[in-house]
């Protein structure tokens, strides 16, 4: 009987013991990214810009070149890299604190310039690395370390919907929101990441994939319940789907 290899760790994923908490979504998104990099054959061409936050150590996992950016500056660093090396695949991988709080300016302007980069935005509705404070994407009434009675939207504003906000700009070619709360949606997420990278390879322009993700540790729930919470609490507010597929003509 001949043996058939049906599964192996992607070449783009290093063999490392994870530092992420049980049930954290980053591991899933890292793996999807690595699989896509393998499938597109771009491992040697890829430069990943890491954020400040839990995924600051992405270079420990993805077997590609990378640069750690100052907090919130990943899309600007990515712009610098991409303009010098238009032939490389430049990925800005960011969380909600990095992308939508301290780095909102860079996020909007890189998108508005239509930089030919791919932004992967992991939204887990909380500041993970600093230990669970309110993020711009924290849900209304969600309890965090800095909102012990829940996010009061009258005081601190409503959770920001990144895809909808970026969809007001003319330049982006692709904007999609996905989730990793179940297998079906994990597969959709992989497809979205692949499209974002393919767009860049084709020279189309700015692609943005927001992935709704989990933070069981800082949410204070078990991983299974965390995945359920994404589905029941986050998805209704952050609707999944494609917001933009082609460049708007203005």
């Amino acid at each position, binding site marked *: 009987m001949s043996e058939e290899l049906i599964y192996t760790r992607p070449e783009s994923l290093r063999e490392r013991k994870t530092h992420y908490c049980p049930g954290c979504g980053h591991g899933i998104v890292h793996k999807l990214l690595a699989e896509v990099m393998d499938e597109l054959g771009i491992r040697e061409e890829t430069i990943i810009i890491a954020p400040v936050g839990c995924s600051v150590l992405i270079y420990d996992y993805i077997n590609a070149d990378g640069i750690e950016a100052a907090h919130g500056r990943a899309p600007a660093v990515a712009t610098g890299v991409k303009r010098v090396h238009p032939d490389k695949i430049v990925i800005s991988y960011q969380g909600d604190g990095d992308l939508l709080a301290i780095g909102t300016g860079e996020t909007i302007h890189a998108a508005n310039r239509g930089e030919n980069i791919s932004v992967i935005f992991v939204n887990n509705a909380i500041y993970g690395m600093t230990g669970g404070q309110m993020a*711009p994407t924290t849900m209304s009434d969600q309890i965090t370390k800095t909102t012990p009675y829940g996010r009061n939207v009258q005081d601190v504003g409503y959770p920001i919907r990144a895809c909808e906000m970026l969809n007001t700009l003319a330049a982006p070619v692709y904007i999609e929101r996905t989730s990793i709360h179940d297998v079906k949606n994990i597969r959709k997420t992989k497809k979205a990441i692949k499209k974002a990278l393919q767009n860049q390879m084709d020279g189309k322009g700015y692609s943005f994939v927001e992935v709704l993700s989990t933070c069981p540790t800082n949410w204070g729930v078990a991983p299974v319940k965390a995945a359920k919470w994404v589905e029941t609490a986050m998805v209704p507010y952050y609707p999944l789907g494609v917001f933009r597929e082609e460049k708007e003509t203005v």
Partner: protein
Amino acid sequence: MSEFAFLNGNEAVAWGVRLSRPHVIAAYPITPQTKAVEKLSSFVQNGEMDCKYLHVESEHSAMACSIGSSSVGARTFTATSSQGLLYMSEGLPYASGARLPIVMMNANRSIATPWNIYGDQMDAMHVLNSGWVQLFVEDAQEALDMVIQSFKLAENHDILTPVMINVDGFVLTHTYEKVEIPGQELVDSFLPAIEKAPHLMNDQDPMSLCISAGNQHYMEFKIKQHRDMFKVFEQLESIDRDFEKSFGRSHGGAAAGYRNEDADVILVTTGSVTGTARVVVDSLREQGIKAGLVKLRLLRPFPSDDLFELIGKAGAVGILDKNISFGFEGTVYTNVNSSLLQKGYRGRTFNFIAGLGGRDITKENIEEMFSALLEQKGETVQYFNMGCAL
């Protein structure tokens, strides 16, 4: 009534802020300051503080909000660390130039690159010229007490200068100690409500703030700011004397000596490492070695007179720096050395650089520093506890 509690440095700062009754706190979380702002946001949301807590999107905005609230007369507090302080740094001279009495906790932490979350004092040195009073504390009690004292200092109409309280990251922010929390009534009588400063706005007294000044006027603003900074020495001492009368504790003025009077050799420290150095000084004294210590509490304004007096006739002085100014030497050393030279100090000075990025500074390291001072051996600038030769 005061009470004793088991608090880490972050919590001690939060209690100091709570007791000082600020109107506004604007902060963005960053390790290792997070526990302070979490505690403060809880105090506010529990209704234990009558204060606006502003959940801002970055440190840059935290400083801008602080400038806004302080400009209209509100007692204002913020807290940050490391890259956060550097991101704030554009706003720091705005605040000090506008003479706004903001008080800040800076949890001292290293600066990227390499990225590192652990303690050293590179961040504070980076903004030494920002026009803020730079104060360093040794333990959690001093951290709590100095928040209260700092508001009184900053709001003094002869001073009107923002104060940065430097609290060593992790060693102080995350270490639990027995801390006395003073009673609110006592703090209220020591630190009354903020008085409206003549140059600040309120709804009865509208005015334009943060004006432009061209080359005809700018220099006078800056020299006045510089001269007023020196008034901090006298005010700090006076505030500390009053504090002692009210609370029974004194932390001293700009610098404090420990077994320094007859010392042959003296180590100058800032912040938490002072505690370790005290232990080493005691053990050297038991061996008959005349070792002494000077704890620098203020780096801005820089206490040249006090320092010279405390160091006196010691044959050699070592300055411990948890920072490095690339291409030169440790920043505290530069300051101390220059000041001693101006005062005519004749002994030899050494610069001991240690503890970068959270590297331990052990008792043995400090013993080695004293050995270098006693034997007056080695290079002027020396590095301690290196993992490998470079």
